[in-house]
């Protein structure tokens, strides 16, 4: 019988009611009395020198409050980068200035040049058209390998070249890795592209800046995954507003997928302008604007080599990756191709030697940063593709080759710094094989062939590092922030509870899942517990939601705070029961003296805490509210095995997903329904990357895919049918170092699915006699067909 309460129950989501009735409060639904609207005039060239911006005529247009340009921000800090990577020579990465509004040059299509603030959006837009711009278009660098050639056009004139950093990891392993390749019985090499993606949460970004001169306080309403991070970055580094004078609110947020982590120019602008004008200022991104101003994701070009001995054991992995940073460093951009990518290159395998080289490159394109999975999909894609290719070259079964090389003992120290605490890759592989029905595949292939289609089976394993992250460790790696999280459990006199959490829910269902944990611990009903999030003035602190960290890090803080509540409540209960504290037990919301029928209810104790007439005031304070900060001691390591079957139409190259299964190990699970939903969403984004999506630039840096007419978002009919799709999370090896034993589930689907699909596509083509060992993503009909033609 499935549980209906507490940890492990598939409770229906309470937040759904407001979303299903139109009562959600998204940032664009917030209007502040007297607000003005801002329209950003953005660069339509990828690279140019600004000679002159003449705003005189535009400023005289109806409704215009003021027009801002880069000159207004000369004394203001630029947008900061939150992670400093050190290159293989021990030098810090190049870190160019990132102005709020362009100063002197524009460096990508979409770079904001001027901001027109007016009484209405229409008036702001009209006035922007009247701004006279004199810009000399300069040659643009778009291709990464061209950008690092000597003499290439520089994105930033004050830097020596376009190379942000050249990172080697683990540098001490390099010589031994080279040696292993010399001694290898077989080496498989693969060159591939992990294409540029646009996260595309359905809610475009919005910022509303407000200023209260009575108390000199600024408020920013923004579509953010981490309001406290924005407060810290914008307050301390950009605008110089002290934290106690700055409130950041992220209300209902319509999806994030990474791109709403970062601190953006528009947020700083609206906050700045509201103070300058003493008037609220609102910006709502259009979708077209989002394509050229939201940080993009992925965009790696990689060469990977896998060395094997004569018994097909992996002996070494060596990679060289070019990682696109775009024109400026977005908030966490430098960490993505390095610490979130190189550290995962051991995968699920006991490869003893790994050397990863990453060259991060500036180009005249939109900045690139974390997108669902962030570095881990890139690592998984190249590793699992090269393993599949090796299996084919060696004539061995790809599943058997993986099994042979699995890590089976834990904890496991990888050669790439991280220590996997727990896992069972055999179990997820077994589960995956059972669900996809490997034995039945030849019959299904024969059936497809009868219909003139090629059928392929692709399998894939993955591991990810989630629950980001131990602060002292990431500090050594260059993070300029701690990555703990915090929670306050406020118990009211009547026993109801508000839990203020630093995690932010933008689709993940925290308002439902987090109370299940507290309810389980206290033995009370979930309906007595509410979660408060997304407002820096209401919650203690928090680093927000990304990297599948919410339940693993913030959930742990919530457990610690609840434990403090239980300890104090037991003290109060023991006083009321006139018993020793050691004898008091809490069960089903009752405090009972062990071995007796003497008990007091949860509500009696909470009331006593706030009406302390009969209360041990000499020992403890009144009230019942506790805060905990939790800093994890390690990452968590969700892992899994995925499989899919595709059909390829040999006449057109069109690929369809016929079956898809995932076997994930997320450790313990709070709400299975929500976990499955997260996996469905991640897999859809992974299938989107594998078959449909591509953010394309032309050689001049013009963004070719800047709307839903050019950028192929997955639709309902691109995804596997209900009966042919299973997501499983029954293999559970609980995390050993956090109190709930949880690992996180938000990114797994996006990490595990792209190589699964491409492995299946290659298998299908090979079955038709086509000598194709790789198809770059997205595997569109045109690309697949071209590959078939040789």
């Amino acid at each position: 019988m499935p549980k209906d309460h507490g940890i492990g129950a598939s409770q229906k989501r309470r937040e759904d009611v407001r979303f299903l009735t139109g009562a959600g409060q998204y940032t664009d639904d917030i209007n502040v009395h007297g607000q003005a609207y801002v329209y950003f005039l953005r660069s339509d060239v990828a690279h140019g020198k600004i000679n002159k911006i003449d705003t005189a005529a535009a400023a005289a247009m109806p409704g215009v409050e003021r027009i801002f340009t880069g000159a207004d921000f000369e004394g203001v800090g630029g947008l900061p980068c939150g992670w400093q990577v050190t290159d293989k020579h021990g030098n810090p990465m190049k870190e160019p200035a990132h102005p709020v509004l362009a100063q002197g040059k524009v460096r990508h299509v979409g770079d904001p040049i001027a901001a027109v603030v007016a009484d209405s959006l229409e008036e702001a837009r009209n006035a922007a058209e009247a701004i006279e711009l004199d810009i000399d278009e300069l040659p643009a660098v778009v291709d990464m390998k061209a950008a690092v050639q000597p003499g290439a056009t520089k994105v930033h004139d004050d830097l020596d070249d376009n190379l942000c950093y050249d990172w080697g990891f683990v540098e001490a392993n390099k010589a031994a890795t080279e040696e292993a390749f010399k001694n290898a019985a077989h080496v498989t090499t693969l060159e591939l592209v992990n294409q540029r993606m646009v996260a595309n949460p359905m809610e475009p970004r919005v910022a509303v800046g407000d200023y209260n001169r009575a108390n000199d306080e600024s408020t920013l309403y923004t579509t953010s995954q981490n309001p406290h991070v924005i407060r810290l970055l914008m307050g301390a580094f950009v605008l110089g507003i002290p934290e106690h004078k700055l409130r950041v609110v992220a209300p209902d947020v319509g999806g994030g997928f990474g791109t709403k982590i970062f601190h953006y120019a528009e947020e700083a602008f609206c906050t700045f302008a509201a103070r300058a004008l003493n008037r609220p200022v609102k910006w709502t991104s259009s979708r077209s604007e989002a394509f050229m101003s939201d940080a993009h994701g992925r965009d790696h070009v990689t060469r990977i080599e896998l060395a094997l001995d004569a018994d097909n054991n992996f002996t070494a992995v060596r990679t060289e990756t070019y990682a696109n940073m775009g024109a400026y460093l977005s908030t966490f951009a430098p960490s993505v191709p390095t610490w979130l990518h190189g550290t995962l290159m051991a995968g699920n395998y006991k490869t003893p030697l790994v050397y990863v080289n990453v060259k991060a490159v500036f180009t005249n394109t939109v900045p690139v940063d974390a997108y669902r999975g962030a570095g881990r999909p890139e690592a998984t894609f190249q590793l699992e593709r090269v393993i599949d290719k090796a299996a084919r070259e060696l004539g061995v079964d790809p599943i058997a080759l993986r099994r042979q090389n699995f890590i089976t003992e834990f904890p496991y120290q990888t050669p790439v710094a991280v220590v996997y605490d727990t896992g069972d890759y055999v179990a997820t592989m077994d589960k995956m094989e059972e669900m996809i029905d490997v034995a039945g595949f030849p019959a299904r292939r024969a059936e497809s062939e009868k219909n003139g289609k090629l059928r392929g089976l692709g399998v894939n394993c993955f591991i990810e590092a989630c629950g980001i992250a131990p602060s002292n460790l990431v500090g050594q790696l260059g993070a300029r922030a701690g990555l703990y999280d915090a929670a306050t459990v406020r118990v009211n006199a009547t026993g109801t509870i508000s839990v203020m959490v630093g995690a932010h829910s933008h689709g993940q269902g925290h308002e439902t899942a987090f109370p299940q944990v507290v309810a389980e611990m206290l033995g009370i009903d979930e309906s007595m517990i509410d979660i408060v999030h997304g407002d820096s003035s209401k919650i203690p602190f928090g680093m927000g939601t990304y990297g599948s960290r919410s339940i693993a890090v913030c959930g742990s803080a919530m457990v610690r705070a609840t434990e403090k509540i239980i300890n104090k409540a037991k003290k109060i209960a023991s006083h009321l029961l006139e018993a020793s504290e050691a004898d008091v037990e809490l069960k089903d919301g009752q405090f009972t003296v062990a071995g007796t029928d003497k008990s007091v209810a949860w509500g009696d104790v909470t009331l006593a805490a706030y009406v302390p007439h009969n209360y041990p005031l000499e020992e403890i304070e009144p009230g019942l509210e506790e805060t905990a900060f939790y800093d994890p001691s390690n990452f968590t390591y969700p892992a899994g095995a995925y499989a899919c079957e595709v059909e390829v139409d040999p006449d057109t190259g069109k690929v369809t997903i016929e079956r898809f299964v995932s076997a994930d190990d997320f450790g313990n699970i709070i709400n299975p329904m929500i976990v499955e939903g997260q996996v469905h969403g991640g897999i859809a984004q992974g299938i989107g990357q594998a078959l449909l999506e591509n953010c394309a630039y032309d050689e001049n840096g013009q963004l070719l895919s800047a709307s839903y007419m050019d950028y192929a978002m997955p639709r309902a009919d691109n995804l596997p049918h209900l009966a042919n799709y299973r997501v499983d999370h029954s293999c559970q090896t609980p995390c050993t170092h956090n109190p709930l034993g949880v690992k996180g589930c938000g990114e797994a689907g996006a990490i595990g699915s792209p190589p699964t699909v491409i492995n299946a596509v290659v298998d299908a083509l090979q079955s038709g006699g086509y000598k194709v060992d790789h198809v770059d993503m997205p595997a569109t009909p045109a690309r697949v067909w071209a590959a078939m033609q040789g």
Partner: protein
Amino acid sequence: MAKVTMTVNGKTVSKEVAGNALMTDFLRDGLRLTGTHVGCDTSQCGACVIHVNGEAVKACTMFAAEADGAEVKTIEGMANADGSLGVIQQAFQDHHGLQCGFCTPGMVMSAAALLKDNPKPTEAEVRDYLEGNICRCTGYHNIVKAIMAASGQDVTPVAAE
């Protein structure tokens, strides 16, 4: 400016609107019915689907003035008279057919239009009908399941994952 009069969720409303005011602006700014969302500027995403005279319409493709005299229904008008969730809304909650909730109003309005014309759609018909509604969170799996369930079809065999 022109005066328009229409029925929105059963209530008659009259307002002065600019000739170029879109239905999305009229509902969101004029009537404070912010459940109708704007997710794109090319009429692709479907977050703004409403019903006009019983037909599904992307509100971003229609001027408010064009709705003069029309009967309009938005997500705010989809609950039962007692405030409880309607059949489709309830199915979306039961089957976890939404995550961030931003595309949800359009999905529910599209689903209602589909089921009015085709009370027992096949799965392929549901997926085909949702061509004009983009969701980035759910992978559509549970949306499809919710719509099938709302049509009275048994989805328990596939629900048992």
